[in-house]
């Protein structure tokens, strides 16, 4: 089965063509992300691609480029998949309208994909997605701990109560004077800190699988305001800050994996690229005998490949959406 996947829920206008699903997951034929590709370099830079107008300007060239790079024609496709929530209504509408128009014009079945379900199925690109799995979806806008019991069967255990971890990293980088986007530079400096790293105080919420990262951000803001951060200790402070976020994610994820009977762990979303998170979570999981997987970093940020992958499973296992695929900015993660 061959499918075109479209993603416009937030900053990125993205499309991808993929084939599958098979024993090796899905095969990616092309993946185009407007902000990362040369075809619209003039939109690049630090201003996020948030405007629905920009989605509107890039959606058609992005889809055309994805089809061209895959070397397929419209007649070769078996279906379409599109993110229909959660996200910004004005941005989601652009992708969903394009998908619906193509569906009608080409007579192709259409499936709607939840953005977080897309992140999870991104792990099925080029590799089979072994289920059940405990997925940690950690990005700028999301931090969800989701039990995926079978294809399309989800149980959300916890989420952030305030800031998402990627947001905490970005705001910490700004507080420490790295500007925007300074997350990679802060992580590099943190990794260079000598000696043992003592994390800052972390939120502990007994009886819940939720996360909280605003407390550690506020603690860092206080240190900066009090003049306690200087050139001598900046690396140490960055490391302590990173360590508290990474340990919160690691502790809760592994505890949940054990409590729910030794589920293997999958880490997706932009924060999955953090080196320290990969190192600590992998080491601690190995000690606990829990398999852990971090997919290709290129598939961790928003893209169309993950939507195509989720769409391939959904279309082949549950069939096309019987009702119209409608935009829902608050779409809950529900079963199919």
């Amino acid at each position: 089965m061959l499918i075109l996947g479209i993603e416009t829920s937030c900053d990125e206008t993205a499309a991808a063509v993929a084939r599958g699903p098979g024993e090796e997951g899905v095969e990616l034929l092309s993946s185009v992300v407007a902000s990362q590709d040369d075809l619209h370099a003039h939109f690049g830079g630090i201003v996020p691609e948030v405007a629905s107008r920009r989605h509107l300007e890039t959606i058609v060239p992005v889809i055309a480029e994805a089809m061209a790079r895959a070397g397929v024609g419209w007649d070769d496709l078996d279906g379409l998949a599109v993110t229909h929530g959660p996200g910004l209504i004005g941005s989601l509408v652009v992708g969903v309208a394009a998908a619906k128009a193509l569906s009608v014009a080409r007579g192709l079945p259409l499936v709607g994909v939840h953005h977080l379900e897309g992140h999870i199925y991104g792990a099925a690109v080029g590799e089979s997605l072994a289920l059940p799995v405990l997925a940690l979806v950690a990005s700028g806008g999301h931090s969800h701990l989701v039990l995926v019991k079978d294809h399309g069967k989800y149980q959300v255990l916890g989420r952030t109560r305030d800031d998402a971890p990627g947001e905490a990293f970005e705001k910490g980088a700004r507080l420490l004077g790295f500007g925007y986007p300074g997350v990679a530079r802060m992580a590099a400096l943190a990794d260079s800190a000598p000696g043992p790293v003592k994390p800052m105080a972390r939120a502990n919420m007994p009886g819940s699988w939720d996360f909280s990262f605003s407390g550690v951000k506020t603690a860092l803001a206080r240190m900066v305001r009090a003049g306690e951060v200087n050139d001598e200790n900046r690396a140490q402070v960055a490391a302590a800050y990173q360590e508290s976020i990474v340990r919160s994610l690691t502790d809760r994820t592994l505890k949940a994996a054990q409590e729910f009977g030794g589920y293997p762990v999958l880490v997706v979303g932009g924060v999955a690229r953090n080196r320290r998170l990969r190192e600590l979570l992998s080491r601690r999981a190995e000690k606990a005998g829990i398999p852990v997987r971090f997919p290709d970093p290129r598939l961790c940020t928003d893209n169309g490949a993950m939507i195509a992958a989720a769409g391939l499973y959904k279309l082949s296992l549950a069939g096309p959406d019987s009702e119209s695929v409608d935009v829902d900015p608050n779409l809950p993660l529900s079963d199919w």
Partner: protein
Amino acid sequence: MARSLQPALQISTSSPEQTRHLGRRLARLLAPGDLICLRGDLGAGKTTLVQGIAEGLDTDQPATSPSFTLLHQHPGRIPLHHLDLYRLAAADLADIGVEDLIGGEGVVVVEWAERLPPGFGGDRLEIALAFDPGREEVRHLRLSAVGPRWERLLRRLREENHAHPRD
């Protein structure tokens, strides 16, 4: 910009829970179409205050930070549109449809309102949140009204505060 007729109302809170409580108090005053603009540095308590407002409006989900996702729309007793300009250029505001939300069926609360273009919005409540220089948990909130509706509500809050300073 319309000049306020009364001085700003100063309220101090000594914990995140007290900031949330103030949010719940504010929610009791809110009506469809209202706009609240929040200013303050990272960690000053803007999202915490909105969490209280969301609780007071009985939203379906607790409020979290929309810094990356930009806009969270919560169904509730009155719908809450929770907007965050942390990452947004002013030019993008129109594309998000903010003008359509204000004065509509919900309440609009804007974090990082200092990034709104000059002259944006009509009647509104403005709240500036600031850290206390010495006490870590203490925040000082400065509430000021723009327009007759918020002049009236601010007067009511001020009276409540005198009568029950801790309520």
